[in-house]
């Protein structure tokens, strides 16, 4: 039996942050993706976009510095960096849908080996699904990275051969960061780029509902 430690939510966020190059414009979804903001390397300028009309978001404010008029898409108070800009929803989504956002980091219910993303509704019969900006981001951003636990709380795989939940967008995911591995979505399917120390490829495969490929070197 191998010993391994799955990454914490914050460690997953930090792992993603590590891969974002200077100068990229990034949009962060709700949940673990939001944590990425706090993990960005201090020596790189990375510009954060929020759907509700902010480019150049800074860290959360100290309680005494809260400006109630400045919130992010998750409705949390945020700050503005020097160089920030403010705009309305149509301009904001023009940035997204026009391909001007370098990277969007999203959570997921399921990702399929062909890059299909399901992250907005947990069943086709869902009474009142809430899509928000997920579909726009999924098709509009230049790259989609998903950050998610490798399996559900019940141990069911979230990386699957076919999504069973309603799609957010077909074939859009480029890369997946889980608490167990970093996986690229390629033309031949899931390609494992990295596994947490102590976890075997076979053990990772056992928690995944699609064939994993070893990275060609």
């Amino acid at each position, binding site marked *: 039996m191998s010993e391994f430690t799955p990454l914490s939510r914050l460690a997953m966020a930090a792992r993603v942050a590590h891969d974002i190059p200077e100068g990229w414009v990034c949009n962060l979804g709700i949940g673990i993706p939001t944590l990425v903001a706090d993990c960005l390397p201090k020596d790189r300028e990375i510009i954060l976009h*929020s*759907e*509700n*009309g*902010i480019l150049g978001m800074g860290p959360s404010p100290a309680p005494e510095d809260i*400006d*109630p*008029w*400045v*919130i992010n898409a998750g*409705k949390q108070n945020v700050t503005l960096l020097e160089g920030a800009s*403010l*705009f*309305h*929803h*149509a301009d*904001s*989504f*023009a940035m*997204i*849908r026009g391909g001007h956002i370098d990277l969007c980091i999203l959570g997921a219910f399921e990702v399929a080996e062909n890059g299909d993303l399901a992250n907005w*509704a947990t069943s*086709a019969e869902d*009474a*009142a*699904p*809430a*899509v*928000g*900006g*997920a*579909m*726009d981001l999924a*098709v*509009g951003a230049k790259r989609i990275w998903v950050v998610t636990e490798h399996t559900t709380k019940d141990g069911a795989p979230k990386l699957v051969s076919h999504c069973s939940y*309603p*799609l*957010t*967008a*077909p074939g859009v995911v480029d890369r997946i960061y889980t608490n167990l591995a970093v996986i690229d979505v390629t033309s031949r399917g899931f390609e494992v780029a990295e596994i947490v120390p102590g976890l075997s490829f076979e053990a990772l495969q056992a928690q995944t509902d699609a064939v994993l490929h070893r990275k060609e070197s």
Partner: protein
Amino acid sequence: MIDKRVRDIAEGLEGIQDGSTVMVGGFGSVGQPDSLIEGLIEQGARELVIVANNAGSGHVGLAKLMEAGRVRKIICSFPRSAGSVVFEDLFKAGKLELEIVPQGTLAERIRAAGAGIPAFYTATGVGTKIAEGKETREFDGKTYLMERWLPADVALVEAWRVDRWGNCDYRGSGRNFNAIMATAAKTTIVLARKIVELDEILPENVVTPGLFVSRVVPFQSNVPV
């Protein structure tokens, strides 16, 4: 002299008809014209179609309007959020029609209505449930959905500074849906946080030019705390 200022909320909301399509600006708590929504409950119009990003939360504002049975249908991107109990109850009971629109498509449909564009194509929603019943079309080898404009009878908007011509600016992230809804309605009613003189907003800093605005309502809080 052009003067779009009205005395109070009641005068600002005069004439809104039963069955109207009413846009409600704001995103989260920023730029939500709460006191206009409270005024709309007073005003009494029924069978409303509401266009907003959310479906309200708690028992105030939009949620209160729905709870009062005034809303026939809601067009929004994200109805289910923390505290959206009124919406969920009404929806489950079949007492509220729902049209879910991706947030960017919602914004663009509103902008299109203001700009005289009856329909446009977008990649958002292709290959998903949102595409059901919608026309698709290929351009340069990629598939897009056709989406229609979304005009309204009335837009309820909150702005920061407003002058008597109706020129507006917004504070922080407050322009969100407000600035586009202002362009898309037959009657645009602006709740002004501050009413200012004509020369106070510099020409280059006006976000909503006055020609989009019908009435300017001075801010006064009628929202129960």
